[in-house]
């Protein structure tokens, strides 16, 4: 073990509850805005602005929010696909050691990358059309040292069977498969190295409804079978309700509410969560016109409003909300809210499960 690695483990030696796989503290990612001939920095896009959450082993955390709220940036920072500006991402390795992902150098990240994998949004864009399934799914194996061709094709066959595809299709190219089947290929590839954490960035939003259900069921089955932990990034609240144990809601770079799924949907405590829930069209013509659309647009993360970022669109905003940003506080066991007025507000969620 190198000295730096030991150092990074030292910084991460404060205890983490044993059920936790990952802890993110005050994660920030700013992108500079450059202007002029000398490309001087004139501002910052605060994509992720102090995000704190944790992932327990074997659970699914849904991360929801509107486009531009920083959910994808957060997920990419977890895998160190982009370098976070500041903050801490503590991860418990398979051998029980804690590491701070943000402190690791590229070569130290390599072994970690086997444990953390990603499923991308668009299966039409994330598969190379010139590679057949054996190459696509086998590539992570090859990169990580499974050089024997026979061994590799056996493993690929196993993986394809695991995700419900026939191993005979191994020599075919992605164009021969439908959207749902392609997403299965992407999932097989993500599972090739037996990961422990899978970050799924909108894995079903590009699929048709009838196929969406198949892929969601597959993800649930695989989680049970392989004891996977999911970070499930999505904008579709019904999908998130379906698959998540807990849900975190993001708004302009910050988490505004995080709680167990049913609690969040039935009794939201943040006005933004409630507004988001009421905006979902209910698939029942007898329950109409409950939609109370939020006024205005999502503010730009390069110039967010003062205080609570949600105050210009919030019906309950006070002067305090305009001046001071609320902290994310645990108001009930496992229920975190960032709102000054959460105690006095009585917000309604969706109706009970039908």
């Amino acid at each position, binding site marked *: 073990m190198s000295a730096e690695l030991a150092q990074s483990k030292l910084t991460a030696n404060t205890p983490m509850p044993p059920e936790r796989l990952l802890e993110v503290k005050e994660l920030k990612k700013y992108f500079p805005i450059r202007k002029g001939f000398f490309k001087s920095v004139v501002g910052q896009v605060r994509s992720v602005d102090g995000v704190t959450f944790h992932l327990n082993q074997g659970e*699914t955390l849904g991360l929801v929010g*509107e*486009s531009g709220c920083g959910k994808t940036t957060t997920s990419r920072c977890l895998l160190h696909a982009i370098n976070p500006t500041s903050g801490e991402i503590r991860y418990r390795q398979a051998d029980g050691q804690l590491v701070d992902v943000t402190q690791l150098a590229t070569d130290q990240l390599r072994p970690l990358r086997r444990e953390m994998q990603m499923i991308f949004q668009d299966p039409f864009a994330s598969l190379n059309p010139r590679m057949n399934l054996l190459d696509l799914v086998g590539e992570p194996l090859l990169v990580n040292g499974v050089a024997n061709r026979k061994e590799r094709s056996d493993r690929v066959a196993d993986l394809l069977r695991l995700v419900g595809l026939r191993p005979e299709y191994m020599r075919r190219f992605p164009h021969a498969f*439908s*959207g*749902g*089947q392609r997403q299965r290929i992407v999932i097989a590839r993500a599972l090739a190295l037996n990961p422990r954490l899978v970050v799924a960035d909108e894995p079903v939003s590009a699929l*048709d*409804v*009838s*196929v*969406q*259900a*198949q892929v*969601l*069921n597959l993800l*649930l089955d695989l989680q049970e079978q392989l004891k996977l932990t999911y970070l499930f990034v999505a*904008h579709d*609240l*019904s*999908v998130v*309700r*379906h*698959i*998540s*144990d807990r849900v975190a809601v993001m708004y302009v770079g910050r988490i505004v509410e995080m709680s167990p*799924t*049913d609690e969040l*949907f039935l009794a939201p405590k943040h006005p933004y969560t409630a*507004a*988001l*829930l*009421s*905006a*979902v*069209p*209910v*698939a*029942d*013509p*007898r329950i*109409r*016109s409950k*939609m*109370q*659309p*939020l006024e205005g*647009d*999502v503010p730009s993360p390069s110039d967010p409003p003062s205080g609570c970022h949600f105050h210009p669109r919030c019906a309950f905003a006070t002067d305090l909300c305009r001046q001071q940003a609320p902290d994310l506080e645990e108001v009930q066991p496992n229920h975190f809210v960032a709102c000054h007025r959460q105690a006095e507000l009585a917000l309604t969620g*969706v*109706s*009970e*499960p*039908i």
Partner: protein
Amino acid sequence: MTNQPLLEVRDLQTVFELDEGIVKAVDGVSFDVYSGKVLGIVGESGCGKSVTIKSVLRLIEKPGRIANGAIRFRSKILGNSSAEMIDLVHLPAKSAQLRALRGNEIALIPQEPMAAFSPVHTIGNQLMEVIHLHQQVSDDEAKKIAVTRLKEVGVPNPESAMDRYSWELSGGLRQRAMIGMALTCNPLLLIADEPTTAIDVTTQAQVLSLLRKLQQEHQTSIIFITHDLGVIAQLADDVVVMYLGKVMESGPVDQIFHNPQHPYTRALLRSIPTVHTKNRSRLPTISGSIPHPFQKRTGCPFVARCQEALPQQRCSNQAPVLKAINEHQSVSCFLHEEEVNVC
């Protein structure tokens, strides 16, 4: 008057003649649109919903063509009397008559407003172009109409929005401007092709309530195309469910959601996750995937994925036709015939 449809589509067939074979993208579709009502067309990708409305607008380009059927529209400017219906299929392509219709009496809200607006012309420019095409007005008057329309669809500061470019607006504003543009000439029929798929839920809610408000104020008929059953349930009066170019079921929205008759409609409704489902429960799915359009098929298009297919291969050998099962609802399925026979 209200009982007479504004648009009648009968047995529409649109085919694409490709080197690999003929794709029947729309294969015998019939529906009516009544004035002041919203017709929702639902279906998965590739079911022919977009081709259907492109056929109505006569925007099908080679190698595609309308092979058969009638699209009768009650036009005010082309028809001699209000009772007469014009068959759009028989109007010559690129004719002045069609141009007079498009954007004037039939308007389209496309799926991607970013792609639909020109990035090098201002919003105002593009709105005024439509007005000049269809109305004999001066520049000042056209500008006034355009500003009123933008105000109507809830664009803040419409005067300054006129001078801006589409890429300067946010997704929701852009879609509003698009709706404003579609409404400039007070169309009789508004066709919305998945107008909310590219935007967020909160913006979607804004756009939907705007559409509903405008529809009630102007008594415009809307054909709303989407794959989101929630949106259909909230907006539509009547629903057409399509699968592989055919109408599987059609009827009033309440019947479709609460008394679906076709196995495909039932399966589709079961398989959508909703915010009301218990978390971490398995969803009932439709097995298999949508067949490839080149695949030759006889019989019902849904048979391979249908759980209720009849014995003795009847569903795969013979194609059912769309039949009215009561005053409002029509279904294309043998199951229903069987039930009638039993009775």
